């Protein structure tokens, strides 16, 4: 048994090959129950076969629209949700089958910061208790030292130690998010899963929190999995970016590859859909207006899941699911039969039209 475990771990370690986190074929389905007896009548395929690697010290951004599975992916990776299938390797170990007790030491190394700073802090606990909680759970809180550690953590995230005795409701959204970050930092983790950490904040405050996360990464050599729908923020923080659609990663590459030479039609549409940054750019960026809505993850289209909204779709797209591999001379993986570089962010010197399907605008 022991030797078996040892071999398995050795295999995992070699499989990691210097990666801090590796996810292979990760699947998370949620059952749909109906009727008096709560029969399972279907599955929501929130995450449906995701492969990812995260190297030590880097930030991997995960972008996608609501319902694409990015939040479920983050929560499954840190085992807040049990994976349906697939493997999760963290820091040289296969943690897929780990139970609560086995996960405890792993949780010291991998922490999460949630989107909503209003819901993720216990309103009855003081800031000191909130930040000290992970230390207490892991038996690392020792009176004087513990107090000092909490105060040091508050200073690290830009709050003052006097804040320690107050309650969450006394703080603004940005400050609450700092408290959440301090709590995540308490155990000196190697990696943080940041699930939409700034999207609930006002723009003038978002930049403060983004800069704080930047600073902490430099200071403590942290590795980030940064989940967000805001493409501009993801560009700013990420070294590499994975784009998700309906439970799958459809393109993954360096920041430069994804933003400056995206190859998947969905990535291209997503980038082109973001409002321009200045009125002087009006009509000088081609906009791909996609038809329709994201299909239900309970009943995804056959073949390529994006084909129902894709202007390039052919027969093969319905028949054969495109693998996430480098294509068409590119050197980053993209899951499209017709992958091709397009530069949706490049400005044209003369106004351009639209690609894709505009809503019918029959005159009245």
């Amino acid at each position, binding site marked *: 048994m022991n030797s078996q475990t040892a071999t398995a771990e050795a295999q995992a370690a070699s499989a990691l090959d210097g990666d801090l986190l590796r996810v292979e074929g990760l699947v998370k389905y949620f059952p749909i129950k109906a009727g008096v007896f709560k029969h399972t009548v279907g599955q929501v395929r929130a995450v449906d076969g995701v492969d990812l690697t995260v190297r030590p010290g880097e930030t991997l951004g995960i972008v996608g629209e609501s319902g694409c599975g990015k939040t479920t992916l983050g929560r499954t990776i840190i085992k807040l949700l049990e994976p349906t299938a697939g493997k999760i390797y963290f820091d040289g170990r296969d943690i897929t089958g780990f139970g609560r007790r086995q996960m405890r030491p792993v949780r010291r190394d991998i922490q999460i910061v949630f989107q909503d700073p209003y819901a993720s802090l216990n309103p009855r606990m003081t800031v000191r208790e909130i930040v000290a909680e992970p230390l207490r759970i892991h038996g690392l809180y020792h009176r004087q030292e513990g107090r000092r550690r909490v105060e040091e953590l508050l200073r690290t995230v830009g709050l003052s130690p006097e804040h320690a005795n107050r309650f969450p409701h006394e703080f603004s959204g940005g400050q609450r998010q700092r408290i959440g970050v301090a709590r995540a930092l308490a155990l000196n983790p190697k990696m943080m899963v940041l699930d939409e950490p700034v999207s609930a904040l006002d723009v003038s405050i978002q930049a403060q929190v983004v800069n704080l996360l930047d600073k902490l990464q430099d200071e403590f050599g942290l590795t980030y999995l940064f989940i967000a729908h805001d493409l501009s923020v993801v560009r700013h923080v990420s070294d590499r970016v994975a784009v998700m659609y309906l439970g799958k990663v459809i393109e993954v590459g360096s920041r430069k590859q994804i933003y400056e030479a995206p190859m998947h039609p969905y990535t291209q549409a997503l980038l082109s859909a973001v409002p321009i940054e200045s009125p002087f750019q009006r009509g000088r960026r081609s906009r791909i207006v996609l038809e329709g809505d994201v299909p239900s993850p309970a009943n995804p289209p056959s073949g390529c899941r994006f084909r129902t909204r894709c202007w390039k779709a052919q027969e093969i797209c319905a028949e054969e699911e495109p693998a996430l591999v480098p294509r068409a001379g590119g050197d980053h993986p993209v899951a499209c039969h017709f992958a091709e570089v397009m530069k949706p962010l490049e400005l044209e010197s003369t106004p351009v039209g639209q690609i894709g399907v505009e809503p*019918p605008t029959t005159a009245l």
Partner: protein
Amino acid sequence: MPDPILQVKNLTVEFKTEDGVVHAVTDVSWDLAPGEILGIVGESGSGKSVSVMSILGLIPSPPGRIASGEALFKGEDLLTLPKRRLREIRGGPMAMIFQDPMTSLNPVLTIGDQIGEAITVHNPGTSDGDVKKRTVELLELVGVPFAERRVRQYPHEFSGGMRQRAMIAMAIANNPSILIADEPTTALDVTIQAQIVEVLKAAQRETHAATVLITHDLGLVAELADRVVVMYAGRVVELSDVFAMFDKPGHPYTVGLMNSLAKLDTDQGRLEPIPGQPPSLVSPPPGCAFHPRCQLSHGRAICRTEVPPLRPFAAGGSSHVSAGHVSACHFADELTAGHLQAEAAGPVS
């Protein structure tokens, strides 16, 4: 500028709360020209929504109270109109599109019934056949596929984007001369946002309605607006033609907002956030409400003592003063295009 279709003058709105009086909107004035798109930008709590909702008689009172001001629409002051007359105007010549179409549509009526109702309330005596025909036309105009069939569906059978289209169809049903859109794309995903922006453009082309676009998204303003009102802590801090504002922002808050945004099309070093927190509206800072966060004030006394009036300025010391571009900053003349002269002028805490 042609004669404005709507004139808001010195609007002040307060809310009585347990913590004291919240000064949600203070001394706000702007004009809306026929056919233009006026963007009102600001962060949460800046008063952008409250200012417009109070004009429409849509703030709960109590606790809300319009303390002073006028809102002139075709010679009538909306703030003093009887409720009945205001109801005739809302949904008729002035129509609204809200952020969350799920809460603003009636879940137990079909989409067709709701659009039909919007038509018949303001045009009693329209025949059923005409109402139906017009409803389908409107849904087609806003890009709802299979409109004939979908008029019989309920809001829950529509996706978020489709619901927002239905809302827009309802808003333009009576050919409004003013369209008020409060965060019309905020609740939607980016690819759906892009669709709705196109629908809004189409709706505006179709009706030529003057549009008030309330948003926190500078990108949406850049994309759609002709003129912009920037609000901070319940006051207008800058009012400008959209091109002039992006070219030479006239208020340190506007500059701060632009600088703090992550950019989609370039790699940046560190972001430049606006330091500090938005102020309390119960006891806003004296003088200019932005002064505690301002990188241009340098602790000058006047910023703490006097509320700066909106006035034209000469950006970057140039002699060019644009009459339509006003800023409520004592030192707007010291701003250079897109930058604060913080370093040059002295230390900033």
